[in-house]
């Protein structure tokens, strides 16, 4: 079947009442999560996981995908109306979006963001539909050395995105290390369980994710819990002149966002930064930027939504996430007994195509929800964080103990939560820990298989072309950012 026929099949699954409801719930929750401070899409997906045990994997992943791209738009509201980006990918939006709001054009900023997000989300989904299957087909030829290097690339790329590459790498290795707790998957011997039988199944992905993204985030954010004063929303639809200024920025942002999103771990934040810089470069009058230029909202907003769709390409096609949130979604797929990777398009085609189809529906839902309801969502901003974080902690503890009816898990979550708090406090990225835990068994298995195949020689990773290229990219991902920093520092000193 071609992609169009597959997509039609996907639509037939996605429009069942339950899946439509899950899609709607996902985008609505995403909107709310994006607006509320102190909880991001990664934490929200982790907290929802216990609620989806009995649900079908298709419905659950449709909801999580909706939550992911819905949160991108929710973050825009806080950027525009109170100058506080709800998500890191909305930082650039706040520069011109907030200025527009102070000029009484906050509604237009939100309107163009909704329209730009819809266009970018739709084109991004088309890109996902066209690019992921051939990439998956190519990856079907991968053997253990290629898979091993692919996982290494995913870990190093995600580690390299944050502020410090070394901290990111250390976090990734800590995740790999935690992934060795339990039974050795190759020889069936228990290890690193320290005499505690409840650790024989390993460190649970849900416990670690809820702890790092839920408890850690709350402890890091609870210090300041005052509500911010918000500006009026006003007219939402852009006029002819504003539309004329914005549409090219939307198209450019879509292309930039999708391409950057596809790169492992580059994600929506970098996409929005690049889009803003490009818009400023191509503008006839760059001095308008920072003073309420509509292109400064349209470009980055289109870009971060297209990147969300792009980030799903490596997740579905290769089993390597393109962002922190897709790392959590990858763990969810494994929890449902699925094996993310190239086989997904053959063994779980119904699920993959239903999720892709649901993204068209979800983007449309977001558009029709956002244009008339922007003012209503803005009211959520008046909710003080003091009222939000205690229930989040209650949900964290309930979700974790319900997973295995085990109070010990709650103590483990508390311990990891403290680590998550310190990591957040001192800018150690948490996503690589989760990714290391999720991909650790695959990495260890494929590395041990590769070394067995090569009679213990590490040359197998450089003598096979695809593995060698992946290894080279992984090395570049680690070495290039510090090299650029060093060059910048030397130039600044000169």
């Amino acid at each position, binding site marked *: 079947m071609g992609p169009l026929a597959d997509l039609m099949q996907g639509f037939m699954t996605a429009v069942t009442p339950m899946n439509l409801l899950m899609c709607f719930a996902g985008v609505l929750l995403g909107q709310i999560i994006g607006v509320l401070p102190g909880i991001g899409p990664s934490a929200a997906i982790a907290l929802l996981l*216990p*609620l989806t*045990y*009995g649900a079908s994997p298709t419905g659950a992943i449709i909801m999580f995908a909706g939550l992911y791209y819905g949160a991108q738009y929710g973050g825009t509201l806080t950027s525009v109306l109170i100058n506080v980006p709800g998500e890191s990918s909305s930082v650039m939006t706040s520069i011109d979006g907030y200025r527009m709001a102070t000029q009484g054009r906050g509604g237009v900023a939100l309107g163009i963001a909704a329209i730009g997000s819809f266009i970018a989300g739709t084109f991004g989904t088309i890109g996902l539909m066209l690019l992921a299957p051939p990439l998956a087909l190519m990856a079907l030829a991968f053997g253990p050395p290629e898979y091993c290097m692919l996982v290494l690339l995913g870990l190093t790329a995600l580690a390299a995105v944050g502020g*410090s590459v*070394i*901290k990111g*790498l*250390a976090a990734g*290795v*800590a995740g*790999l*290390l935690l992934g*060795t707790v339990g039974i*050795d998957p*190759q*020889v069936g*011997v228990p*290890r*690193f369980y320290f005499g505690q039988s409840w650790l024989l199944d390993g460190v649970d992905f849900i416990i670690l994710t809820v702890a790092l993204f839920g*408890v850690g985030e*709350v*402890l*890091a954010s*609870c*210090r300041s*819990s005052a509500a911010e004063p918000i500006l009026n929303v006003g007219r939402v639809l852009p006029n002819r002149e504003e539309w004329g200024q914005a549409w090219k920025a939307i198209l450019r942002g879509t292309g930039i966002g999708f391409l950057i999103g596809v790169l492992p771990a580059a994600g929506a934040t970098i996409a929005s930064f690049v889009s803003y810089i490009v818009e400023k470069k191509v503008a006839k009058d760059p001095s308008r930027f920072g003073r309420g230029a509509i292109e400064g909202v349209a470009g980055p907003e289109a870009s971060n939504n297209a990147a969300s769709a792009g980030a799903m390409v490596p997740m579905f096609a290769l089993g390597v996430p393109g962002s922190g949130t897709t790392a959590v979604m990858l763990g969810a797929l494994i929890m449902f007994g699925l094996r993310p990777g190239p086989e997904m398009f053959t063994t779980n085609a119904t699920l993959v195509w239903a999720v892709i189809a649901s993204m068209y529906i979800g983007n449309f839902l977001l558009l029709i929800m956002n244009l008339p309801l922007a003012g209503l969502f803005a009211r959520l901003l008046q909710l003080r964080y*003091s*009222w939000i*974080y*205690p*229930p989040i*902690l*209650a*949900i964290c*503890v*309930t979700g974790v*103990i*319900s997973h295995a*009816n085990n*109070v010990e898990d*709650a*103590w483990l979550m*508390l311990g990891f*939560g*403290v*680590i998550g*708090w*310190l*990591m957040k*406090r*001192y800018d*150690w990225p948490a996503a690589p820990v989760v990714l290391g835990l999720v991909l650790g068994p695959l990495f*260890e298995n494929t*590395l*041990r298989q590769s*070394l*067995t195949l090569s*009679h*213990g020689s590490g040359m197998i990773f450089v003598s096979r072309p695809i593995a060698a290229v992946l290894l080279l990219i992984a090395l570049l991902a680690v070495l290039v950012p510090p090299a650029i920093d060093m060059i910048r520092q030397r130039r600044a000193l000169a």
Partner: protein
Amino acid sequence: MQGRIAIGELVLAAFFVALGLLWVWTAARMPLWQGFAPQSGFMPLWYGITLIGLTAAVVVNLFIGKEPAREEPIGKPLLVLATFAAGIAGLEPMGFGPAMFLMLLFMFVFIERLSIVPSLLVSVATTAVLFLIFRTWLKVTLPIGPLGF
């Protein structure tokens, strides 16, 4: 508050080093290599060594860094953490309902200084909704105390 090095970050680094050392020490007592194939202890040993090395590099960077560390007050997060721990500790002796209700109420009224009536309402509603979703709808066995919930 400003200092040369953030003490909390050193604590975090010490935790990672301790974790790495524990893994190296344990893995070194496991089979590492047999014939052509790595065994159970091989990867954990290397993970431990790598974690220690990377964390040491972070600590060195902290000491040679030029910017002074900024430490935000930790009183409130520690109070929230202690209340959260008390809530977990109360799960088995008191039961899920009373433990969560008291944890929420303490956070709203004593930590956040919010009004008592809305705090009571939100605490009861949150506990009830969680109990209904997990116990009644999803049939999850939550810890039950003397009050029966």
